[in-house]
């Protein structure tokens, strides 16, 4: 199963932390720091995989990829295929790109809620749920629209939408 999804920027600031098995906040911070340390020490043009058994226990690996200023990290155990995880990450990023049009770090910071929504459509409880970014984007759109409708009862305030 997938143990967690983490986005950190190139200075080690977490942008998204999602563990599919609960980790207390302190532990989360520690894990993010250790992962960031490992990622920083990696040279360029090497494989995208890192053994993470010292952090998460036997047979747990992580795959990472950098997009602009962000590291995307998926943590998973041996019931997942490494290369397929890279593609899943690709799906995630493609979907982000679709939903935010040229996604950048700030989009992720501010639309935290929506990023989680997207991720929840792709991975549920540590298992891959959907791998078509089209489908995911559609689902997210539908949810956003409905939420907006539900919201229209509330007076809209300038500077605060959705």
């Amino acid at each position: 199963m997938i143990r967690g999804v983490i986005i950190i920027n190139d200075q080690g600031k977490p942008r998204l932390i999602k563990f599919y098995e609960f980790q207390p906040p302190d532990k989360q911070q520690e894990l993010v720091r250790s992962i960031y340390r490992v990622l920083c020490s990696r040279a360029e043009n090497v494989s995208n995989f890192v053994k993470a058994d010292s952090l998460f226990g036997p047979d747990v690996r992580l795959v990472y990829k950098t997009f602009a200023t962000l590291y995307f990290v998926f943590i998973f155990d041996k019931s997942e295929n490494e290369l397929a995880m890279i593609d899943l990450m690709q799906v995630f990023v493609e979907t982000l790109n679709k939903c935010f049009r040229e996604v950048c770090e700030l989009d992720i910071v501010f639309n935290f809620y929506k990023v989680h929504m997207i991720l929840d459509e792709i991975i549920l409880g540590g298992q891959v749920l959907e791998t078509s970014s089209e489908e995911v984007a559609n689902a997210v759109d539908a949810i956003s629209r409905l939420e907006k409708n539900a919201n229209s009862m509330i007076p809209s305030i300038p500077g605060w939408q959705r």
Partner: protein
Amino acid sequence: MGSQGGFGQSKEFLDLIKSIGESRSKAEEDRIVLREVETLKVRLNDPNTPKYKLKEYIIRLLYVEMLGHDASFGYIHAVKMTHDENLLLKRTGYLAVTLFLNEDHDLIILIVNTIQKDLKSDNFLVVCAALNAVCRLINEETIPAVLPQVVDLLGHQKEAVRKKAVMALHRFSQKAPGSVSHLVSNFRKKLCDNDPGVMGAALCPLFDLINADADKYKDLVVSFVNILKQVAERRLPKSYDYHQMPAPFIQIKLLKILSLLGTGDKKASEQMYTIVGDIMRKCDSTSNIGNAILYESICCVSSLHPNPKLLEAAADAIAKFLKSDSHNLKYLGIDALTRLIKINPEIAEQHQLAVIDCLEDPDDTLKRKTFDLLYKMTNSSNVEVIVDRMIEYMISINDSHYKTEIASRCVELAEQFAPNNQWFIQTMNKVFEHAADLVNAKVAHNLMKLIAEGFGEDDDTADSQLRSSAVESYLRIMGEPKLPSAFLQVICWVLGEYGIADGKYSASYIIGKLCDVAEAHPDDDTVKAYAVTGIMKIYSFEIASGKPVDLLPECQSLIEEMLASHSTDLQQRAYELQSIFTLDAQAAKKIMPMDSTCDDIEIDKNLSFLDVYVQQAIENGAQPYIPESERLGISSVSDFRSHDEHEPSTHALRFEAYELPKPSLPHNIPPVLASSTELVPVEPSYVIDILHPTSAPSASDAGSSELKLRLDGVQKKWGRPTYSSPAPSSSSTDLVKVQNETPRPDSTGSSKPKTRDTSYDSRKQQNEIPPEKQKLAASLFGGSSKSEGRHPPSQKNTKTQTHTSDKSRSSKASAPDTAVKPSQPPPDLLDLGEPSIASSVPSVDPFKQFEGLFDFTQETTPPASTGGVDGASKDSDFTSLFADMSLSAQSHIDPNPESNGLGGSKVEPSSPQLNKGPNLKEALEKDALVRQVGVTPSGQNPNLFKDLLG
């Protein structure tokens, strides 16, 4: 999607992000966040805060917690939000609680009711949100509360809901396998859901279940093979394609399942050969996902019953991986090779140069994977090179976790394959020098044991040679600074036991050395203890052999220092050492016999040697000993009293929590002594007494004390719990430790070839020059064909088996349909879009056919959503669902999917040329804002994932 201008959030949030981005130090950031926490505390607790603001506050709270600050004060507000009617607030609430709370949190109980209600909602988005929360927040205790609703949702009309319901059930079975064991048939049923996505979701729980117990699911082999075949033949709607591969994630899951089912099962494996071979042929090895499937197929082949053709194909694929420039593929190639050499050790030979390249690659991940491979292929002919390499790498890294692992592997390999004693001792010295404190303490004991026992052969000269070479090398090494403690312990022990055994070194020389060790490590009591015991052994050997001994001055001062030590252990040892000098040769021989580590010490548990003494005491008028059980059970009065003794405390205030019931605690205090007014810790017998005050008290009590007595009868002989050690003089503990390890026959069975084909030293020098690689390769792989160590030549006569598959298949009684299947193209679930086929075989209901595979489900009713509807209407139902599918199904052989509008847009969802034109301005604005906000002070263009899709 409205990130125009701002980012759809309030100015406050923007400012917060901005100030955090601009903060120059962690302390400054902490100050800002703490101020934010204070603001949020006030706002969230203010009853006048409008609801629509609440959402943002909760999101900000999430942000605060992500930065590592305590946000627990707001958890309750997140819980409250889940109760809200408004969808947006509700979903936000659910998101927050799934991130904030763990499944055992006290607040969960407040959410369960809401989840129950939401699972029944008409709005499927509410249901989905609730299912998301279920996956994360429901624990073993609360599963029954939501289980019925979740099971109902398996028949929901929306496939998204069905999918999530399957996942939720999977989660339950992970958390509490017992809770859903009666629902396993649901997973099987969902395999024939008419939505392939739901079928794919059902594979996840099945994978776990099969992983736990494959035998229960052997009947599904045919179904899985069929599904995989349909997927591989592109019978699924085009929308399941990913980078032109049909439903790759489903394929991968299925291959994983098949490899579990086929492991060690020839019959099942034979059913899979064709499809796995097909998939390997069809894989598009230019795309990432294609390679993922290829790799998964290799893994599958390596766990199936061996088939020469498939193995050959797998070897070819591995060759391709290893030759690739991509480190990812090399990594997978090495991994696949590791799996395959279990079946076919020769296969590594073809790739020797590639493997050596990987070993010298700067990529650490790849290097470690390669060491895994080398570890698996070590035999007695290449052990020296491999272990040498491992040690070299071990020294170079800092990661203590991996250092430990690789050190233990070195030790294991050295013990198993060591060509000669000298090499073995040298290797162990190197490992211990650099990682002794990291490896398991057992390893050190193993080393001592190995030196004591020799290699398990009845060759005394070889054993003593081993010991002398160990002593010699230790004397050389021990002067070096900063040796790990565990290594020094081994050294002291070996010097004490064998330092003067071969007569090469004088006793005073060894004793001097041991004193030096003790002196050099004043803070390490363990090392000092080992050293002093070593000295004691040497002296007593000397005394026993009748030589005149005189106490060295440094030894004298050491003893004096230790007599004043804080450590009672050291004191004891010093006293013992002192008293050794008063003994005569006979006594010294008795207490410290030479070379006796391997002798068994017989322990007389009955203490029968005391019988005479006891007899004498009784004759002199002492009271005979009455076992505790008899003392308690002899009259019910005493029991009654012990029963009584607890009674008052029930009325008094109790300040301690109830303990968990423990199996029979020994009563150390005789019951009479216990004062009734004392606060007594609650004891299990007490609980029992309270619960059954009228039941016969003696039964359970007597029984438990009986058991108790048997356990530690030795110590209780005299009725005094303090009496600890029966031995009159405690022999040195290290000696006992080693001896206590039950001497087992040395299973390593190492052979000791006295000749080595290549010299160790010369090889080391050669590593630098390129042609050397060849030599390294030769030394690594050359011997593998005549390997004798851990890979017994696997004899398989696979060729004869390939043609028996038909027979075995038809003999499988559980699936009669499938025997017929191969003769005609199976009309199947997923191929409904093709009207021509449907009309040509009008009588066949594809669903019925498919369900026929699963006779275990025993019901022919299709999945509950369309329950009762006949095949024809289902047909139309399905085609309407996938209206576009007929189109794609006809053109699925079309090599150019771009002609099909659907496929084209799917594969390259946002080609830069299309999107960038109209968006450029927006992107620039965003960029400007980003800079202004200062999230990334580095100043490079932070946005635009240009590299992403190019």
